[in-house]
């Protein structure tokens, strides 16, 4: 198990299960996801298409589309010492908490900024909605824009389309910080950006964290991004967390065959060895294989993986892993 952090938890999700329904079928996108983020820490949810990572983030933010239902679970936050479950909060309180306690930097900030409003107006509107004075808001926005390495005055009067992708992402980050949230959900924070810009944006995120103690929940498919910014990493596959531990543990010495496969699939500029990929392809959530969802692509799979229930997330080697074979090995006390 991960050693409990000395810091208080700012986000504590447990047993989150989300389903999408339409006329034709029901799809379970997230099953029994639990995670917690301590103050000043970064947790990364890693997964590929259909892993449920984005649905999980939207559920945590209370921003699921109408076709989705949260079947069970809780999303606990503790603003000013009060423990609240976001999933059971009246709409109005949720909206207030959304920026003050938990903020969001959506994927591809071009769509999150209103194209016909200057950047300054975005800050003002967010401030107005939360009863932050105009003066105070502007002063704080200027500070934040400077903190994300932009020229506050110039940016304040610009329109979104006049800014580059990296600059827009910085603006979105500054905007998320406006009401001093405890935790920010970053959805693929660098996916649409160029390599050099990616690096600069990630650096800025870490600087902000060091300066303010804000926590991040980062959603990403990019292992190297997770490795560079996260303290804790959770690998998701087919809607379930399959491995969870510190970034060092999981990414340097993965136990779950899927995490290990992902790492072997990721090319490195410093290695000539051909990457290996995982056979097959990610399953469709509407048509999951029985047993462990990963078994059709897994070299270790045996009869129990194919026919038994999905493996539970169990402690193994100072982290948790959902794999029959790994649990077996740990129980037998064998080497990794």
């Amino acid at each position: 198990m991960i050693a409990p952090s000395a810091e208080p938890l700012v986000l504590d999700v447990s047993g989150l299960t989300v389903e999408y329904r339409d006329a034709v079928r029901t799809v379970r996108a997230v099953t029994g996801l639990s995670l917690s983020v301590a103050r000043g820490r970064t947790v990364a949810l890693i997964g590929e298409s259909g892993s449920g990572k984005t649905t999980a983030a939207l559920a945590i933010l209370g921003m699921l589309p109408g076709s989705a239902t949260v079947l069970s679970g809780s999303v606990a936050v503790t603003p000013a010492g009060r423990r609240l479950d976001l999933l059971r909060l009246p709409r109005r309180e949720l909206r207030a908490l959304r920026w003050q306690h938990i903020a969001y930097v959506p994927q591809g900030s071009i769509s999150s900024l209103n194209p016909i409003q200057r950047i300054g107006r975005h800050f003002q509107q967010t401030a107005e909605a939360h009863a932050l004075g105009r003066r105070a808001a502007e002063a704080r926005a200027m500070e934040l824009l400077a903190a994300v390495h932009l020229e506050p005055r110039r940016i304040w009067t610009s329109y979104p389309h006049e800014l580059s992708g990296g600059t827009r992402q910085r603006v979105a980050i500054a905007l998320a910080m406006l009401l001093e949230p405890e935790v920010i959900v970053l959805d693929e924070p660098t996916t649409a950006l160029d390599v050099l810009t990616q690096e600069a944006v990630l650096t800025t995120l870490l600087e902000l964290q060091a300066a303010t103690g804000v926590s991040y929940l980062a959603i990403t498919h990019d292992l190297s991004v997770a490795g560079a910014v996260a303290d804790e990493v959770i690998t998701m596959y087919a809607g379930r967390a399959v491995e969870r531990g510190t970034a060092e543990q999981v990414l340097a010495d993965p136990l779950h065959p899927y995490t290990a496969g992902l790492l072997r699939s990721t090319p490195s500029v410093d290695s000539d060895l051909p990457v290996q990929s995982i056979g097959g392809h990610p399953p469709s959530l509407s048509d999951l294989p029985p047993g462990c969802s990963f078994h059709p692509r897994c070299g270790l799979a045996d009869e129990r993986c194919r026919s038994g229930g999905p493996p539970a997330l169990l402690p193994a080697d100072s982290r948790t892993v959902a794999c029959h074979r790994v649990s077996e090995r740990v129980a037998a006390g064998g080497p990794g």
Partner: protein
Amino acid sequence: MSELLALEHVSKTYRQRRRVVVTAVDDVSLALGPGEILCLVGESGSGKSTIGRIVTGLTAPTGGEVRHDGRSVSTMTRRELRAHRLGVQLVQQDPFASLNPGLTVAQTLLAPLTRHFGLSRAAARERMAALLADVGLTPPELFGAKYPHELSGGQRQRVAIARSLTVEPRVLVADEAVSMLDVSIRGSVLAKLRALCEERQVAVLFITHDLAVARQFGRGHSIAVMQHGRIVEHRPTSDLVAAPEHEYTRALLAAARHEGLRRRAADRTTPRRRQDEQVDAQIGGGHPAGTGDAGRVQ
């Protein structure tokens, strides 16, 4: 190495509105021999995709010349030009947009086979089955009957590769061919593409924004780095990665290794419990680059 396809001092400018001229490609020269792989690496707007379009003939250059087998494309007759163009095929980025949604895999692959080789229906089917097996879509009968929406992204991209190989091209342009695929399947698609091209002695212009992918795909061949429409460094893959000469290449490599972030991560491994000090630690310089466990992650 004998020259198959070459760009000589090629430029491409666009006229935006009246006086504004945008230079997408600025005096680029490169050459491909049979079976050779050239990885073109650059960020968005560097002109790498425009080069790909010029090589395939989808876009005409505004300056310089394109040579095929030593002959300038501009002096070719219509007939020669068609033959040249057919020899240069493209694998596109988006596996969801690159296949006709209304055609089965078999229909997609049979059309070029029957069009260009005068094959009988049965012979064309045989060739198609062989191609599907080559790209790893077996059994071919099963995949031939599928529509694109019934395939996963990786399978579609394999179909796109098979389609580009139907006409037996001598040059293949792969424009971000795996960047939209899930990480866990990229490697197999890349390996397949490389093996097929090696087998057939097809030259590949491999366009990507990702140096690590270029390193993989271009091992034993060369990488050209583009910035602002120009090639700033073009050298054998292992040399370029081991000892980059241009500053921009060095910056790209550092970013790919997350060197700056590593340093910070190393700082952070000192326990955070000393909260009072965290503000002072915000600008973490001076520490050696982390070579700990996190360093093994790429």
